Each structure stands twice: as C-alpha cells, then as structure tokens.
C-alpha cells in the first residue's frame, strides 16, 4: 500500500470514529456498544504492538487490563473522586506490574513465554476473586462511578455517554498516536527486526531481551489504559476483566483484523464485539459460537481482514 493510500485510509478511519455517535444507531448499534468497541480496539491494538510488531505471543494481557480496571475503581471508591487520578493510578499499577513480570519472563520464548503469561494472568484473577473485602470478589466492585472532570474553564460531564465516548476517543487517539510514532522510529524498527529474525537482530547489535521487555511494558501500559476506560464505561469491574478468556479475545481480535497491519486490531475488535453482542442476545450458548468462531478464523482466515491486502514474501 503506497503512503498516500495509507494516509487516506487512516483519515477515513478517524472520520468514521469521530462521527460514530451519529451513524452507529443507523446500523442498529447503540452508544455504549460504540465506546466498548473503541476500548477493546485500544486493548487489541496495544496487544498487537507486542504480538504483531515485535512477534511475541502474550496470552495474559487481560491481567494488565484488569489491573487498570480495578485501579481506577479502587481510587474512585476509596481514595478520591477524581477520574483523572483514577486513570493515572490504573495505568501506573498496570505498567509497574508489567515491568516487574516482564523482567522475570523475558528470557523465555515462544510457547513457554505464552504459558507463563497465562499463568501470571491467573494470579491477578485469583487475587481479585479472593480479596473480597476490597474487590467485592466474584460479584465485582460497585459503589463508584465516573466523575465529571474539572478542566478549570469547564466541567466535562462524562456521566453523559456521548461525552464519555469523546473522552475515550481522545485518549485512544493519544495512545494510538504514540504507538504509531514508536513503530516508525528507529526503536520501532528494532522491534520489527526482532519479529523477523531474532538471531539476526542480536547479531546486528540489538539487545533483544531488553527491547522485548520495553515492548512488553509499552504494550501493557496501553492495555491498562484500556482497562481503566472499560471500568469507567460500566462503572463496574469484576474478575472477568482479568480472566484468560479476555486475553484470548484480545488475541483473536488482533488476528481477525490482521496482525501485521496497524489498524487491523481495530477492525477485529469491531467485528468481534458486534458479534459477541449479537450472539449473546440471541442465545445462551454464545460460548460455543464464539469458540467455533475462533476455530474457523484460525483455520480459514489466519491473516485477517487487512492481511488480505498486504503482500507477503514468497506468495
């Protein structure tokens, strides 16, 4: 895809996102669904920074998503009724956890790395589940909600769904913008190098483990941001925000939309969230359908929607 076409496509995407509250009801959607797609897209795109661009498989990203969610919830419920502080706290917790865990596991590779990320995800799920008194256990954490943001010259009433959507969009834009910048930088190119051929990257003088760690931390930082927004969207969070199935959902969104393209996970998130929403409203056996969906995507559509457009060496 030439540069001009890429810019055109990006512009179109931003336009669609900006105008979402207007066209979404026309296709049978509703505001909350749109915001949810955006949040999930952020999570999937953040995961893809690690998965599609650095070539590292993490199947435990829900842990950091959940840490963000619980972080903001706990701040709003127990500390200070400030949405911004809550978001910062959520992101901070997720990032610090990722930094520590990442350092521990960065020497592992492939399936073993994936296994360990899954296991660590479970640790946080388990904590959220057990620490009833604070987290509300399986019932989830309630009794708090998103607070209007005081900008000095105005108050942003994010209790209003539409205004909240635009806040999410703004944060989404910032996060996505940073990720795009990073991927286009020399550092980003070293990540591509690691994905393409780790040995070669090492023999070009790239400290592979350190860069994988950096990519992991960056990826988890943005995923935890998505987590805070998710909790704020629902004014609620529960252990399912930390569970392995959510991790799997992030991965399938990235794969479905196209792992190797920047906007792929957004497309994947849109399709997946819409599908999930529709199926769970039609039948209580949505789990089997989603499971079947996973199987079909993997077998017949592994390069994803946008993967169809990318050229591939040897084909």
């Amino acid at each position, binding site marked *: 895809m030439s540069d001009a076409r890429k810019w055109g496509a990006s512009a179109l995407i931003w336009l669609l996102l900006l105008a979402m509250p207007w066209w979404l009801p026309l296709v049978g959607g509703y505001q909350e669904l749109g915001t949810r797609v955006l949040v999930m897209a952020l999570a999937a795109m953040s995961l893809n920074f690690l*998965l599609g661009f650095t070539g590292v*498989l993490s*199947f435990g990203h829900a842990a950091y998503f959940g840490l963000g969610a619980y972080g903001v919830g706990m701040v709003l419920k127990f500390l200070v009724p400030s949405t911004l502080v809550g978001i910062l706290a959520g992101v901070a917790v997720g990032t610090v956890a990722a930094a520590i865990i990442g350092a*521990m*596991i960065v*020497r*592992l*590779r*492939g*399936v*073993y790395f*994936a*296994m*360990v990320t*899954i*296991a*660590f995800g*479970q*640790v946080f799920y*388990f*904590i959220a589940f*057990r620490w009833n008194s604070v987290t509300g256990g399986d019932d989830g954490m309630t009794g708090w909600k998103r607070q209007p943001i005081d900008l000095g010259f105005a108050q942003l009433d994010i209790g209003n769904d539409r205004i909240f959507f635009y806040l999410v969009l703004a944060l989404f834009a910032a996060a996505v913008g940073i990720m795009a910048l990073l991927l286009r930088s020399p550092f980003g190119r070293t990540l591509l190098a690691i994905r393409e051929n780790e040995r070669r990257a090492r023999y070009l003088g790239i400290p592979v483990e350190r860069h994988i760690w950096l990519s992991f931390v960056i990826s988890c930082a943005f995923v935890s941001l998505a987590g805070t927004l998710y909790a704020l969207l629902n004014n609620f969070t529960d252990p399912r925000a930390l569970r392995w*199935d959510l991790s*799997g959902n992030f*991965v*399938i969104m990235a*794969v479905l939309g196209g792992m190797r393209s920047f906007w792929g996970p957004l497309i994947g998130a849109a399709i997946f969230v819409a599908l999930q929403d529709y199926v769970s409203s039609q039948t209580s*056996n949505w*789990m*089997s359908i*989603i*499971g*079947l*969906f*996973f*199987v079909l*995507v*993997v*077998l017949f559509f*592994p390069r994803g929607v946008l993967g169809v457009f990318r050229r591939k060496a040897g084909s």
Partner: protein
Amino acid sequence: MTQLILFNVFNGLVVGAFYALMALGLSLILNLSGVINFAHGGFLAIGAYLAFTLMPYIGFWGGLLVAPVLTAVIGLAVERVLIRRLYGRDPLYSLLLTFGLAYIFEDGTRIIWGAQSLPYQIPGWLTRPLSSQLFFLTGYRVFMVVLVAVAVVGLFVILSRTRLGMRIRAGTLDLETVSVLGVNVRLLRNLNFGLGIYLAGLAGVLAAGLLGLQPTIGASLIMPSFVAIIVGGLGSLPGTLLGGLLIGVASGLATVFMPSASEAVIYVMMALVLLVRPRGLLGEEGRVQ
C-alpha cells in the same frame, strides 16, 4: 497438630497427584508438538461426563476403564481433523484453536448434560477410611493416589520400553532427524496427542469421584497444570511430575497455616522458580530459547 498437618499434606499429595496427571498429558503434547492444549480441561470434563453416562451400563470400574479410552479417541479425531493443520505455523494459531475448543467443550458439556452439578457414585467400600487413626485416609483418596502412580509408571514404561515411547522421546529431542529416519511423524504426533488426552480423561474420571461433575470442572484444574510444568521444568516429564506433586503438597501445607493463601502458594512458587531458575527445576537448557 500433627494430625492436621498430616491430613493436609496427604490431601496435598492427592491434589498434587491430580495436577501431575493433568500436567503430564499437557507436557507430552507440548514437548513433542509444541502445542499448548488449552482444551485439556475440556477433555478432562468429557472423560468425567462419559464415565457418568456409561455408569448405569458398565458400572464404576467399567467407566474407569472405558471413559478415558473414549476420550482419547475423541482426542485422536480432534488432532487429525483440526490441530494437524497448524503444525507448520506460528504456535499462536494452535493456542487460539485449542482456546476455541475449550469454549466449545465447556459449553457443549453444558448443553448435553446440563449446567447443574451431577453426583458421581463411587463404590461404597472405597469411601471408608482405612483406619480409625488416620481417618483422612479414605479409601477413595488412597485409591486415587495409587491409580495415578500406576498410570505414571505405565506412562514411563511406555516411554522407555515401547517403540512408540522411544519414538516420542526421540521426536521430542529432534523431530526432523526422527522423520528422516523413516518414522511417520504425523502418526506419531497423533498417537502422542491421544496418549496425553487419555491421561486427561483418566484424571476426569478420578476427579468426578472426588469433586462431583460440573461443566467447569476442567477449567479449574488446568491452571495448576500449567504451573506444574513451569515449576517442574519445561521439556521434562519427570520434572512435570515433580512439579505437580510439589505444588500440591505446598498448597496442602499452606492450608494449615494460612488457608486463604493455599492457592496463592502455587503462583508464588512459580514466581520463585522463574526468578531463580527460569527453565524449571528439572528443565533442560535448550528449551528456554
């Protein structure tokens, strides 16, 4: 106090034996084919439910014998039809596939057998304690440990004495060489998968007797199996066995002193191992990179 400790250690041993059985099956599949079988818990559940369904016809012992075999057959089919296509590709895809299968199995068992817990009858004489002193040594628990021991010994015998077993071991070390030597690698992977699933099915039947039947029975046991593999050592079956027993006993001991943390102990151990010896207690060097 000693009674309490003994009780919990023994319980831990029973639980550990379980984890080990599950983890061994997972490990077999992981080591030879590089597939993380997320659906392993689902196969466990299938084993349990099949035994339950067959029980009116062939009784407890029949179920114990037959259900794991049937589960293994299903496993062979799944490998042949689905998983086989993904071997050449990034491990990401087989993980996603087994993930989807886990969903399907869990929902499937719910559709077929219903969402509520089902009772699983074990023969009366097994439920009695073996001695009035050591009341916790119920027949069933001892039976389970013994059976797992038999299964493990059987597995190791298969691996060291039979042709299939030796090929699996060689294949785990170097699949390319093995195929060049004329071994049918597709069949080998298929049978290896079946063997791993047999162990899952067996674990399922045993679990049913202890925990009763629910659709979520598999999901709760799969995570500790992962940890058992990580702790015991990547690529090492004895390591996996050791890992399972260790975390079982550790969580049993933790129950004595800090009951709420008994599950957490498993993950703490995992974190420790990763910090100190990332390849696991008995793991092999090459596997990490």
